[in-house]
C-alpha cells in the first residue's frame, strides 16, 4: 500500500502532529488515504505542482493559512442534511417550545459550531422556517462558524451537488429552498440571508461571537484530544446563553461532572445550561489566551527534521 503513496512516511507523522497541535484532533489510521486524495486536490488548487511540493512548503515555511487549509481539508467529513434526525426533532419539539416564551418579542440565536460545508445550519434554518407559525413574534438568527476552509467557503456560497442535496433533504424542501444551477443546487437568497458564516478557531475563546440560545456541536466531540475537549467545552460554556441549550449528537454524552450543562432526559444529546444556583463550582470564565484566528501557533508545528525541499 505504501508503494502507492507519494509522500515520505515521516510526513504522515508530521501531519498527524500538525493536526493535534493546530486543532486538537487525532487523525485515525484511515487518514493516510485522505492525505493522498484530498491534499492532492488541495495542492492543485493552491497552485503547487504536486502534493510533495505543497507539504515541503508547509513544513519549511510553516505558513499558517496553508496549515489551516491542509488540516481542515483532512478533517472535513461528509455531512448530510438533517443528519442525526432526532436532534432536529428535539430542536422543534422541545428546545424551541421551551425558549419561545423567553424570547418572544426578541431574537433567538442558533449557532452551528464547526459548521463545515453548512448542511447542519441550513437544515436548522429550514426547520425553523417551516415551524415559524408555531413560534410567532420571535426573530431567529443563525450563525455557522468554522476554521477558514474550503468547506466554509462552500457553506457561504450555499452551493451543493446533485448528490449532496439528495442525502437527507426531503424533495419538497429542495424545491422550496433551492434553485437549480446547472448540475448544482444553490440555497435561495431568502434562506441564505438568514445565516451568517464566520471564520473561527474552534479552540479559541469565543471572542466577539457573543452568546447563543442554541449551540449545535453534533458528532464532533469524539475526535478531540482530552485537552482540546476541555478547551472546547469551556468555550461552549461561554457561548451558550443562560437558559440556552448545547446540542450534541443524539448518541453523544458529556461527562456528568461538567460544570456547565445538565442532560435533558427527553432529548438525547441535548444539554441545558445550568443556572448559577445549580453550579457545583463557579466556572472559570477568563479566557485562556486572547487567541484569534490570526494568532495560531506560527512555528511550533514545524517539525525541524522536515525542513528542506527533498521529495521522494
Amino acid at each position, binding site marked *: 500500500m505504501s508503494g502507492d503513496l507519494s509522500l515520505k512516511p515521516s510526513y504522515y507523522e508530521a501531519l498527524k502532529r500538525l493536526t493535534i497541535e493546530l486543532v486538537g484532533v487525532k487523525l485515525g489510521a484511515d487518514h493516510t488515504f485522505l492525505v493522498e486524495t484530498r491534499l492532492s486536490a488541495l495542492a492543485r488548487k493552491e497552485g503547487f505542482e504536486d502534493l510533495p511540493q505543497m507539504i515541503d512548503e508547509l513544513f519549511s515555511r510553516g505558513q499558517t493559512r496553508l496549515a489551516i487549509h491542509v488540516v481542515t481539508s483532512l478533517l472535513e467529513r461528509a455531512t*448530510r442534511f438533517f443528519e442525526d*434526525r432526532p436532534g432536529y426533532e428535539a430542536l422543534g419539539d422541545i428546545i424551541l417550545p421551551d425558549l419561545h416564551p423567553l424570547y418572544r418579542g426578541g431574537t433567538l440565536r442558533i449557532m452551528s459550531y464547526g459548521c463545515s460545508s453548512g448542511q447542519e445550519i441550513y437544515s436548522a434554518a429550514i426547520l425553523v422556517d417551516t415551524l415559524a407559525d408555531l413560534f410567532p413574534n420571535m426573530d431567529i438568527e443563525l450563525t455557522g462558524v468554522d476554521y477558514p476552509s474550503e468547506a466554509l467557503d462552500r457553506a457561504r456560497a450555499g452551493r451543493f451537488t*446533485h*448528490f449532496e442535496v*439528495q*442525502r*437527507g433533504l*426531503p*424533495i*419538497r424542501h*429542495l*424545491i422550496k429552498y433551492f*434553485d*437549480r444551477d446547472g448540475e448544482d443546487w444553490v440555497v435561495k437568497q431568502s434562506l441564505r440571508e438568514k445565516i451568517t458564516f464566520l471564520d473561527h478557531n474552534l479552540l479559541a475563546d469565543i471572542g466577539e461571537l457573543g452568546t447563543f440560545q442554541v449551540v449545535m456541536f453534533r458528532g464532533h466531540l469524539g475526535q478531540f484530544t482530552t485537552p482540546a475537549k476541555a478547551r472546547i467545552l469551556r468555550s461552549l460554556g461561554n457561548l451558550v446563553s443562560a437558559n440556552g441549550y448545547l446540542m450534541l449528537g443524539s448518541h453523544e454524552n458529556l461527562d456528568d461532572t461538567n460544570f456547565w450543562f445538565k442532560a435533558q432526559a427527553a432529548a438525547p444529546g441535548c444539554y441545558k445550561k445550568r443556572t448559577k444556583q445549580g453550579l457545583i463550582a463557579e466556572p472559570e470564565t477568563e479566557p485562556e489566551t486572547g487567541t484569534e484566528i490570526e494568532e495560531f501557533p506560527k512555528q511550533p508545528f514545524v517539525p525541524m527534521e522536515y525542513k528542506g525541499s527533498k521529495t521522494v
Partner: protein
Amino acid sequence: MASSIQINANKTCLIVDDSKMIRRVASRILRELKFEPSEAGDGREAMELCKAKMPDAILLDWNMPIMDGLSFLKTLRGVEGGAKPVVLFCTAERDVIKIAEALDAGADEYIMKPFDSDILGSKLSEVGLLDQAHL
C-alpha cells in the same frame, strides 16, 4: 392463516423503468436494503402487477414507452388500493416544474438520476420505509 408465516417478510418494491440496467442496479441496492424487488419495463406492465398485488413501494421512471411514469401514477392513485404504495419518482428530470408536477400527481419522494445506494437509502428512510439506522 397462511400470511402468519410472513410477519417478518421484507417490504416489496416495484421498479418501473425501461432500462434493464437501471432495474438491475436498483434491484441489487434494494435487496441490500432488505427489500424484495420486482420489475416492470413500462407503466402498463407495472399497472397489471399492481392490480394483482400492490407493492409497499414503487420506484418510478418518468419517460417510458407505452405508458409513462406520470400517467401511471395518476392511474394508480385512482384505482382501488392505489393510494397505498409509496411512490418515489426516479428520473433524469431535474426541472423544478417537473418535480412539482410529480408531487402534485401524488408522488411521495423524488430521486434525480444518477443515484447511488446512499441516495436510495436516504429517500426510503425519508418516506418511512427504512430505519435511519440502516444508513
